[in-house]
């Protein structure tokens, strides 16, 4: 079992890297929303764009999502 503090926020993952969602932070509203878009713990995610400022783009379950940096910070991931 990995320690929770070894996870890093999705916002810090560089473009081209594939990671697995481990934990979602934030309220139920946020969690329900990203879950309906395919982001739940255990899902593999590829970061497509992360320019270091402004929203990032990820690929999840065959579709592309743009996430604001605040939202991406609440998704904790681990290298796949």
């Amino acid at each position, binding site marked *: 079992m990995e320690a929770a503090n070894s996870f890093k926020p999705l916002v810090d993952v560089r473009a081209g890297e594939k990671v697995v969602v481990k934990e979602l932070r934030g309220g139920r509203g946020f969690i329900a*929303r990203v879950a*309906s878009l395919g982001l739940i713990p255990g899902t593999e995610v590829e970061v497509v764009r992360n320019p270091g400022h402004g929203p990032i783009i990820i690929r999840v379950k*065959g*579709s592309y999502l*743009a996430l604001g940096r*605040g939202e991406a910070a609440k998704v904790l991931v681990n290298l796949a």
Partner: protein
Amino acid sequence: MSCHQPLKSEEITPQTGEKVLRVALAGQPNVGKSTIFNMLTGLSQHVGNWPGKTVEKKSGRCRYRNYLMDIVDLPGTYSLTANSIEERIARDYIVQERPDVVVAIVNAATLERSLYLLAELLLLPSPVVLGLNMMDVAEQQGYRIDAQILQAKLGIPVVPMVASKNQGVKELLDAVIGLVEGLIPYNPRQPEIKEAHKPILEKLRELMDGLVPEPYPLDWVAIKLLEGDSELTELVKGWVDEDKWGEISALLKGHEDAILDIAGGRYEWIRKLVRAAVEEPRMGPISLTERLDQVATHPLWGLVVMALVLGVIFWLTYTIGSPIQSWLEGSVVASLAKWASSWLSSWGAPAWFHGLVIDGIIGGIGTVLSFFPILAVFFAVFGLLEDMGYLARAAYVMDRFMHWMGLHGKSFLPLFMGFGCNVPAVMGSRIIEEERARLLTIFLTPFVPCSARMAVLVFLAPVFFGERAFLVSWGLILINLAILAAVGKVVNLLFFKGERLPFIMELPLYHLPNLRTIGLEVWHRVAAFLKKAGTVILAVSVVVWALSYWPTGSIEGSFLARVGVILEPLGRLAGLDSRMVLALLTSFVAKENAVATLGVLYGAGEEALASALQDAVSPRTGFAFLVMEMLFIPCVATVSAIRQEVGSWRWTFLVIGFYLILSFVAGILVYRFPL
């Protein structure tokens, strides 16, 4: 294609022996749902709002075999939680209206994601038919989907479709009828909740058994309660007594994470279906979407692409829209006026009646008509970009700049459109799903100087400032945009406490647009504008004409002039005399009227007006006047569009009041404190 007939709106009553079926169309955004809706209903569509909501409601009818289908297009949603108005509307409709069949559309190319909504729909009482749309896009991506296996595993009818090519639409209707007539078996398999929460769900069901009123299904209520759904939680509180609620909430406490298990269970269910029915691509060649997005979402090149796209939109508007516009004005409206004028003279009509018909009514019709080509081109291009999937990319690229003002990335496009005309900008703001950002975008749109205000600027700036006209004009535009940003920021801080709008947006796969869908969309938008805003514009045009005519028969001694006199002390603070105040007031009908009114009041034609104004008005006053003209109440067409989009007169008057006050304050400030 005669498999089904989209109906014209006049022939929508059921014929003898015909059965009426109520069908609801559900689906996530970007699954081609509106294309299917348009295929089915065509011109029989009725576009309005959901009762008490600002969300658009589309319904229409379709006659097929022995049935008349009443089709309601539910808002596109990713799930059915209480988190957004759209999701509430969709689920309330199914729970309360119980349509005979729910048609769930999914995108075959993003099957795993889009089946999530189906998992939620199966919990609701209406039977579901699954439309597996965009099979062609899925095939391009390398997916092989076996619809029959999917049907067997799901226990509900599954119809493969390529709606954009009209494939599978007839089969979809056959499946709907087959289901209703009991010819197709219906044994839906529901997703299961993970082990850890099964006993809790069971307990919730027991606790509420017999207490959940019609039309709510007990199982659905129990699941939603466990999900932590805010709306259902409140409802259940009202249904059960305090002791019972104590038990329920004690049970729910400690399971706040249940939503993840429920969602996880749904995705596991989807995973099993997909594993059985879909052959997934091996690492194939780079897809079209990937290739295009290497440029379209690039931080720098993305901006360049967007600038080009915007350039093309403006170019198209002016090369297609403007000639039609001037033809409408020059030929149609002018000859109508001429014909009416000679007819009125031969009939011996009094001068006031002549004025009313020519200046009030025909002038008003001319104003309404002049928007028609611009709107049609804007909506066509906008619809094209949206349908192809580009609009989301532009929003992505601009979000960095927009969210600072509490706006959404999508706000940029309508705001930018405002440079051409504020009317399509206001109407285009409906692409923004978040209500807060949509309202703020509409509120800020009038700051964007439209081409009519630019025309006034181009005429008057050289009069007041000679060679420095270009610099001054440029400065005036920058002032407007700076105020736009500042007001956006302040509203965001004051009313939304600087809270950043969450930005979560799907970037759909690029695909070929469906021209029929876009065409119908353009038709409905333009028709709605002509009908709703058109009446307001015409009425205001007639009223303003009457005010500027009576009681003396000329604008100088008119009621409008008296209003000008009342406002004059205020105008004087900004250096304006009553004539300039009056010019501002008439610019309410159309921005370019400011110049015409000045011409009448200074007793000069447009050529002579320049020198007359040069003699009478100092550059300092001229500057204050231009600042006010640029910030004044948006024209009546824009105001009507705002009313149409926001659906509230109170809000509309708030906008009018705000811009009225702001323009006077700004005019007074620049006059009193010249640089």
